[in-house]
């Protein structure tokens, strides 16, 4: 059933023995409908059990298998071998993240940023459960739906040049998530989030390179979310200076 044999060139790094990463090559007989993850699993099961990487769902929804495949940040479980014409496929850990080992990168920074943007419903007043659900029309849902689709794969961070140059930047996925809650008709937390989102490390560090949206496997369009927040933050900034709106959040204290 072998469809074609490919060479996988995988970046290895074992902190206990290596001083820096090195490439290692493997020959893998692939079947026709294999994704890159299948080939990597083949290596792990048959050729080299010491290769470390993350994966779980094999259906592009858990977000663990983001890797650089031929230089592009991609999900290994959604990238088909047949779509990569070259015989040799180069696999590296996601760019812009520290390499913990082999293809495993450190996620602490991202997790901290995710928490920082307050990604949960903030309300002035809670509705008792017994009163049932908040009403939300399909149109109100559609307004933020796209930004709920992020699987936290971090491909966008691996593509974003601003994040590469300045790791304090909160970055595309976390900012898109803030926008998701801001746009939700049930949420009242937009002003509160603005203290983080509209800071120098937030939206203003983005130069609209759009790389994030181009590589996002879930079409979340973080670049669009960030631009919309820039427009919003600018309008409210001018409104506040012109006395059309009360200042809020940290600036008030």
């Amino acid at each position: 059933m072998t469809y074609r044999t490919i060479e996988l060139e995988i970046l290895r790094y074992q902190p206990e023995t290596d001083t820096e990463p090195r490439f290692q090559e493997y020959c893998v007989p692939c079947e026709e409908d294999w994704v890159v993850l299948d080939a990597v699993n083949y290596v792990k099961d048959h050729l080299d059990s010491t290769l470390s990487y993350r994966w779980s769902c094999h259906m592009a929804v858990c977000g663990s298998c983001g890797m650089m495949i031929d230089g592009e940040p991609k999900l290994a479980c959604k990238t088909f071998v047949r779509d990569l014409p070259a015989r040799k496929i180069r696999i590296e850990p996601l760019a812009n993240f520290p390499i913990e080992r082999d293809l495993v990168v450190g996620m602490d920074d991202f997790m901290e940023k995710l928490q920082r943007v307050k990604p949960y419903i903030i309300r002035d007043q809670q509705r008792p459960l017994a009163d049932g659900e908040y009403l939300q029309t399909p149109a109100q849902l559609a307004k933020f739906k796209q930004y709920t689709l992020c699987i936290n794969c971090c491909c966008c961070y691996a593509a974003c040049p601003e994040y590469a140059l300045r790791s304090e930047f909160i970055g595309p996925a976390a900012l898109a998530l803030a926008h998701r809650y801001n746009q939700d008709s049930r949420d009242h937390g937009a002003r509160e989030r603005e203290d983080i989102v509209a800071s120098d490390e937030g939206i203003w560090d983005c130069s609209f390179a759009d790389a994030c949206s181009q590589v996002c496997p879930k079409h979340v369009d973080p670049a669009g979310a960030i631009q919309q927040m820039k427009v919003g933050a600018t309008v409210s900034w001018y409104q506040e200076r012109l006395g059309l709106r009360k200042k809020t959040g940290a600036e008030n204290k």
Partner: protein
Amino acid sequence: MNQPRPYVREPSRTTWYLTHRRYMQHMAQELTSVFIGAYALLMLWGLRALAAGEESWQTFLASLGSPLALLLQWLVLAATLYHTVSWFAVTPKAMPVQLGERFVPGFLIAGAHYLAWIVASLIILYFAGVL
């Protein structure tokens, strides 16, 4: 040996944009600012000439014909066109228009911008006396 020792790869701070087509495109867009800025200064220079009287104005117009000035203007024209195209391409992202449950497709928004652009350009050309 239980201390994590992650390996940090540093991107080149000065050449990173050469590593991928999309970064080059982005940098090219950023650099249109050089030409737009230069042109704004040129316009300012023109205003100065206009304020100073007919003679300076004529000198100003004539100076536009020097080879260097011509080259600059061609470059500016190319840069501004690139700026226009790339600016319109991303406008739908920054200002999406929602109608009911759907969003107006990006190409329609961009298309509307192009239409407005043509109208605006025609008006300018008309008042400038080109048309």
